[in-house]
């Protein structure tokens, strides 16, 4: 920006007032270092605004001056109503050795405080680090399990078998993931008949030939995907509703569905 453009922009005035910000502020600061002659413009603006402020002056209360001076005395580091010169005299009464002792004591206190603070902070950081590590480990473990489950369910060797629902429970919807190569079975439980969780469970059975059904997994309805036992040679897997905890022989009246391999 040319100097004439800066002068015409009104930004110098806003710079003095103190309302410039962002890009405009950066531009004026750069221009002021680039064109030292703008300093004269700033002086004129400052004097003009000062005169304008005088024109708009308002009298404070008569006692405000004394209150301010009193506060100033309190806020002065060594102040008790005396001036800086007096302060140096007072300090000299202690002598150089006294000053050194006070300084040494203050420094010792400062370093001791810092040392304790550092130890405390370090302990806190270690604790936090440990907690975060544990959280990380559990997340990683859960993630590994999820990934393994995903791999099992998408395994190309899987046969996915829909259940043949028993007429008593026609709304039942279950998929059986059967992998004869890896010898793994999963149940995907989409819709099950309602049971009394306090007294009943679902139970999986393995049926081979004319042999009596072999009892397998017992489960409640809260697991949507569930790994279940694999029994070599099983021709039909069946699910029944049984008493809580499972039984050794199935209650065929409460047969939910079957999966023919």
């Amino acid at each position, binding site marked *: 920006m040319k100097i004439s453009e800066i002068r*015409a*922009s*009104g*930004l110098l*005035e*806003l710079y*003095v*007032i*103190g*309302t410039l910000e962002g890009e405009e502020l950066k531009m004026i600061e750069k221009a002021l270092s680039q064109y030292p002659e703008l300093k004269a413009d*700033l*002086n*004129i*603006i*400052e*004097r*003009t*605004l*000062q*005169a*304008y*402020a*005088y*024109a*708009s*002056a*308002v*009298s*404070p*209360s008569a006692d*405000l*001056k004394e*209150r*301010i*001076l009193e*506060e*100033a*005395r309190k*806020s*002065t580091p060594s*102040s008790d109503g005396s*001036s*800086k010169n007096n302060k140096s005299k007072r300090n000299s009464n202690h002598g150089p050795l006294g000053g050194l002792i006070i300084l040494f004591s203050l420094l010792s206190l400062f370093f001791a405080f810092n040392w304790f603070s550092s130890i405390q902070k370090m302990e806190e950081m270690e604790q936090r680090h440990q907690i975060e590590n544990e959280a990380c480990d559990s997340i990683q473990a859960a993630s590994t399990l999820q990934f393994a489950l995903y791999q099992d369910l998408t395994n190309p060797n899987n046969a996915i078998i829909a259940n043949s629902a028993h007429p008593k429970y026609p709304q039942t919807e279950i998929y059986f993931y059967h992998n004869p190569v890896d010898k793994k079975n999963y149940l995907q439980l989409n819709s099950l008949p309602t049971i009394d969780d306090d007294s009943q469970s679902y139970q999986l059975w393995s049926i081979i030939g004319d042999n009596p059904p072999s009892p397998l997994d017992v489960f409640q309805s809260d697991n949507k995907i569930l790994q279940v036992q694999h029994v070599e040679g099983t021709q039909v897997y069946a699910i029944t509703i049984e008493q809580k905890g499972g039984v050794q022989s199935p209650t065929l009246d409460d047969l939910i569905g079957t999966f023919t391999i």
Partner: protein
Amino acid sequence: MQAEELVRRLKDQDEQALAYLYDQYAGSLMGIIIRILGNREAAEDILQRTMLKVWINIESFNSEKSSLYTWMATIARNTAIDKRRLKSFKNNQKTEPIDNVVYKKEGVKISTDAIDVEKLTAKLEPKYKDVIEHIYLMGYTQQETSEKLNIPLGTVKSRVRFAIKILSEELKNEKGLFLGILLIALLILLML
């Protein structure tokens, strides 16, 4: 007292320098603060804080960047604006009509070469006076001024510039007139 000497003595924590600073600038700073807050009691509290900030932070004042007065006015304005933004201030605010809280300072010694301040502002057209009052005395941002006065942002900038230009020229005329009268008086004295 020259500005350099005043700053040096303030840096030495000379209480008399603070008293002098108050006598010179408290009224004009109060004029800014009271227009921002619209409340005399709160304005005096902020004026006190401003003076104490100046007293405590005088070491950070850089005369290369601005004059002492500009630095103080910026502190006063920012402190007052911070106060105005406080929720507690807004809730307890009992805004008085500006004429009730703002009245002309009596018996003020103007250090800027006996300028007739009434004349200085009387020459400003209302459209310029409005903008400079909002921006400089009432602590409005450019955007807020634009919205309040319903004028484009660019017009705010140009009106601030023209307002200060007009004030500056008026200031020169006042000084010229003062020097002229002084010269004539001296000539008359010499002739006698």
